[in-house]
């Protein structure tokens, strides 16, 4: 075999040695050991592959994906094989619910006692959806988002900081959380970062006391405000000083 043929074969060899026992590579590997030029090429090729593998490993699925899929599997195992409907409907239901929790609208029934923690977790999960929450309306116009939210009978923010009133928006959506209608408006900062405003009726968080100070968790900066029977939940990944300045304007 000439070196060109050996190179073609060795291009399919995985950098971590997973193919070391595959007889198809035996001759080409032997040739790479004996021929310095081919050996050097092979080392460079493996280093290149290693670099690519290492880099793409950083693209990670949210851990919740595994939980949802695994829960789906457990759900199937726990149930006796149904006659009808077919078993995959059960999985479909779990996946759909799981999918909604991962990227979609909010909401499952949970205890009222931890309503604030549940709300915050659900809200951040929704806002963390990539490339962002699925907006019903994509528009730079704040009045257009307000008109849309009002038209969908969603809750409007009773008050907005002055700087935000001048900002463009990315858009808005209206959805439900625990049977309460909530609205989400995404403001676009000049540097492209987003500030999300979730508005919901105070009753939705009945019994929960709202944090008075700014919060941080998982890279999010957050704040709660209450006015006119509404709770405004602000969240952004922008630096805290910018966030604080915005809300205090």
């Amino acid at each position, binding site marked *: 075999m000439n070196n060109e043929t050996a*190179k073609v074969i060795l291009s399919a060899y995985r950098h971590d040695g997973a193919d070391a026992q595959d007889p198809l590579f035996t001759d080409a590997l032997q040739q790479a050991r004996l021929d310095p030029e081919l050996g050097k090429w092979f080392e460079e090729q493996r280093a290149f592959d290693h670099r690519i593998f290492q880099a*793409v490993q950083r693209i990670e699925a949210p851990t919740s994906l595994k939980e*949802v899929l695994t829960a789906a599997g457990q759900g199937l195992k726990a149930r006796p094989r149904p006659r009808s409907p077919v078993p995959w409907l059960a999985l479909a239901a779990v996946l759909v619910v799981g999918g909604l929790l991962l990227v979609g609208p909010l909401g499952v029934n949970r205890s009222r006692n931890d309503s604030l923690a549940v709300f915050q977790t659900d809200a951040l999960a929704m806002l963390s959806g990539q*490339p962002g929450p699925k907006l019903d309306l994509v528009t730079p116009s704040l009045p257009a988002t307000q008109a849309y939210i009002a038209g969908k009978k969603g809750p409007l923010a009773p008050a907005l900081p002055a700087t935000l009133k001048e900002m463009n928006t990315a858009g808005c959506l209206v959805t439900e959380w625990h049977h309460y209608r909530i609205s989400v408006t995404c403001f676009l900062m000049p540097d492209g970062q987003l500030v999300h405003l979730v508005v919901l009726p105070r009753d939705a968080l009945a019994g929960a006391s709202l944090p008075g100070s700014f919060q941080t968790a998982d890279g999010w900066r957050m704040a709660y405000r209450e006015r006119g029977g509404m709770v405004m939940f602000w969240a952004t990944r922008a630096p805290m000083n910018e966030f604080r300045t915005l809300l205090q304007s």
Partner: protein
Amino acid sequence: MIGQTVNLEAAVASFYQPLYRFAYSLTRNEAEALDLTQQTFLILTQHADQIRAQEKLKSWLFTTLRREFLRIARRQSSYPEVEFHAGQHDAPSAERAGDTAADAHTILEALDQVEEVYRVALKLFYLGELSYREIADTLEVPVGTVMSRLSRGKEQLRAKLASLETGVDPKIITMPQRKRRSHE
């Protein structure tokens, strides 16, 4: 066990990450990649009986995911939807975590610039972590074709990466290819 040879839990544990990475490389959209990955496992539960041997499961999953991607791509080209784009919103996690992640982004960009005929084999190799035999099964092409595609694809990828990193346009001389369909 959902079929004679398939344990869904084990399949999820083993393959959800590479499947998601492959899906993300195809869609470049986190929500769509999640949907594709979930849809693939859903189809697995419907058709687990088609998998005759455990060692074929990985290829089957990647084949299924790619077919789903192509099906959705065809449907969307017929019925285009207005989507919320990354440019207007938070960047995907791969682009947000600093230099190393930016490197992943550059690599995906470079992969997308590789000629289509080589691209999907490279994505299966690097993102799906498939062996050449599994790639051959997934793409339903001979093993020799996979090797040739990986070899030429890597040459192109190397040149495209160098180009993206240095800003110099690479001059690649490739063998003439027959015209292919437009989706991966």
